[in-house]
């Protein structure tokens, strides 16, 4: 079976190649210029551009045609396709993939709204790959994908709410705007939407909170799979990862760098942890 996703999964090219996953790119716009996310610009290159630019970056979803092209070879050869994407509340990518599916009435194509983005989506894909590796059938993989989309939790913090606000993705975390105290806003993706969680004053406490969140999940007797991601915040993740690795019953899946599209909306200095219970 074939997995198609989009570039907001923020996996590395090695992982995409290794598991034969096609990330259909979204497009990033900054000033006059545009790039295909992941293919034309690396996270580091984008962070560097962002720090030098006064412009607000924008993004656009892939067209249905882009998905038609991605689906065609597999649809024609009769291979079932799982097409899993960034939360439909945050991007129209899922919708484009759905429209594309209608071009192949005969093919087995399942389009899934991951209700996640970046690390959340990437981790779901890697867990699916694992399942496929254990010999799961297509229906089982699709069912697992939907289950993970319902249960994965992603917590994240941004350096400045400015990017989320300007990009129109701030959701209910709007409640954090106008806070007089300088805070590190802790948010989460719930049902595909951004919600405020907590106002935290210092980086140290923010990291403690991330550790606590994973610990609490793991302490309930379940084994936990987690992943981390950052944009231009690598040192912090080093320290956080070290602490998370000491938690019993918690296994790291991967560590990501947030790609251009998600970084356009979250900004540099973003830090996120996603976790899901192992079934």
């Amino acid at each position: 079976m074939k997995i198609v996703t989009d570039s907001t999964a923020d996996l590395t090219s090695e992982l995409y190649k290794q598991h034969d996953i096609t990330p259909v790119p979204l497009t990033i716009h900054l000033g006059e210029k545009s790039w295909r996310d992941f293919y034309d610009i690396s996270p580091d290159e984008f962070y560097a551009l962002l720090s030098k630019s006064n412009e607000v970056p924008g993004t656009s979803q892939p067209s249905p045609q882009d998905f038609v092209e991605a689906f065609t070879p597999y649809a024609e050869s009769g291979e079932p396709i799982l097409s899993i994407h960034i939360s439909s509340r945050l991007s129209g990518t899922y919708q484009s993939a759905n429209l594309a599916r209608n071009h192949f009435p005969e093919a087995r194509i399942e389009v899934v709204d991951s209700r996640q983005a970046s690390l959340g989506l990437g981790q779901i894909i890697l867990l699916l790959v694992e399942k496929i590796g254990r010999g799961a059938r297509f229906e089982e993989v699709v069912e697992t994908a939907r289950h993970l989309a319902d249960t994965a939790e992603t917590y994240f913090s941004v350096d400045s709410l400015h990017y989320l606000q300007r990009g129109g993705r701030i959701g209910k975390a709007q409640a954090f705007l106008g806070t007089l105290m300088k805070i590190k806003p802790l948010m989460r993706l719930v049902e595909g939407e951004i919600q405020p969680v907590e106002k935290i004053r210092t980086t140290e406490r923010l990291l403690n909170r991330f550790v606590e969140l994973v610990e609490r999940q793991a302490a309930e007797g379940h084994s936990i799979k987690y992943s981390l991601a950052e944009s231009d915040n690598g040192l912090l993740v080093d320290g956080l990862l070290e602490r998370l690795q000491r938690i019993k019953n918690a296994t790291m899946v991967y560590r990501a760098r947030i790609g251009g599209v998600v970084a356009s909306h979250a900004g540099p200095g973003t830090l996120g942890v996603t976790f899901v219970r192992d079934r």
Partner: protein
Amino acid sequence: MSILYISARRFKAIVKAGADWVFQNRELLNRINVFPVPDGDTGSNMSMTLASAVREMEAVREVSLETVVKAAAWGALMGARGNSGIIMAQILSAFGEDVEGRQRFCALDIADALSRGVRKAYRAVLRPAEGTILTVIRETAEAFEQSVDTIGDLSLLTDAMVKSARSSVERTPLLLPKLQEAGVVDAGGLGFLFFLEGMQRLIQGTITANGPIHDETGFNENALEIPAEQVTFRYCTEFIIKGAQISEEALKNSLAAMGDSIVIVGDTRAARIHIHTGQPEEVLRRAADFGTVSSIKVDDMLVQHTRRLVAESSSKAASVVAIALGDGFKELFYNTGAELVLDGGPTQNPSTSDIIAAIEMTISDSVIVLPNHKNIYPAAVQAAERTPKRVTVVKTATVPEGISALLAFVDEATCEENVDRMEAAITNVRSGEVTEASRDATLGGVKVRRGEFIGISDGKIRCSRLSAEDAVADLVEAMVDPSHEIVTLYYGDSIAKEDAGAVSSRLQERLGDKGIEVYYGGQPYASYIVSVE
């Protein structure tokens, strides 16, 4: 079909139909609510008021017109919210005034009740403004009175009322420039029209094809900005006083200076009060002189307003009451999520009853109190024991501890979880303050001259300097250790912003890796309050 009288059953049915139609249109009313304050709740307020009237009516049997009408009047009065709700309640209660022993209202009785209602409504509002629901009600009552000479059929009279209310609503922007600016008609007036229309729909048994009165394309979003001058009266405060002999005049006089949009309704044994004020605590204190205060509701209209734009509707498990002194601190506490900030007073010694009043004013049944001063803690604990609400006092001994505790509060968590989180948060905070010495002394081995600035933390004098800025810089250096991440300076009302900024830059140079934040506390007694955490 002609209708010549209103029986108990009919009264109940038409009030319900009117209430229902207001309810169905409440979102529209909320959206166009710009006067007196664009707090976007006229529709909700009117429909809640009417719902309360309907509930009371439902609770009584239709034995007599008197029972039903009085139930509606009482329900509306006790459930009244907002200016428009209170005015609606006046109309209903006017019907309850001349109903003893009656089984029916005919057209002439209704004309009398309406004109009594208009007088009561104008009396209830301290500064009646034209171009509002008052105008619409008055003009409608006048039109009814004229028609009643020639028409006895209440079905036709209802049509006449709707027609006149409609043209009256359409004229409201001409009378009230704020409405004109916003491109809307008066929300309360329109609510009254909806009430009449609801009755008309029931009577006619059809939905009339009335065109839209309110064109939303002309709606000016900017009108929703709350003007700065209204920020002084940002708390929409409502409560009920029950007493033996409440004098409306005396009550009005006592509250008049406290704010605007004052509405007082009721009788000598129970009164409902609505006021926009900057000091809800003081209003309640004054009200308590007239009887027992209950059903208190205080809304921060600024916050309400923001919330409405965000369309956030999260309910919380607990309300937070903070005690603080200084306008900057009050603002910080409100901004950080306190539902009510009680003024600690110059001696930092609010009475137990002040704290009880504040606790009872909050929305939730579970309340967390942040005393923010060690001297206030005992009073807070006493207050906690004397209210039926579940109250937890978190032992914040300083204002910075209070702020850290409040930042740890999460809406989604239970009250107990929040208390744990808040208690954990304050263990990280170390606080100090800089004050001016009022006399020469040797304190803890430190020689202090009158007029010098001393830095104190953990009850010990850490330094003494000629300027507040030097003192605060030294104090911070004495307090920090390598584990601290943030130094926060809250400057008092005697300190210039520039001086606070300058000392913060100085500290930044000396303390390199730590974050230095400066906020205006506005406290009168200490030049600086500082925390390291």
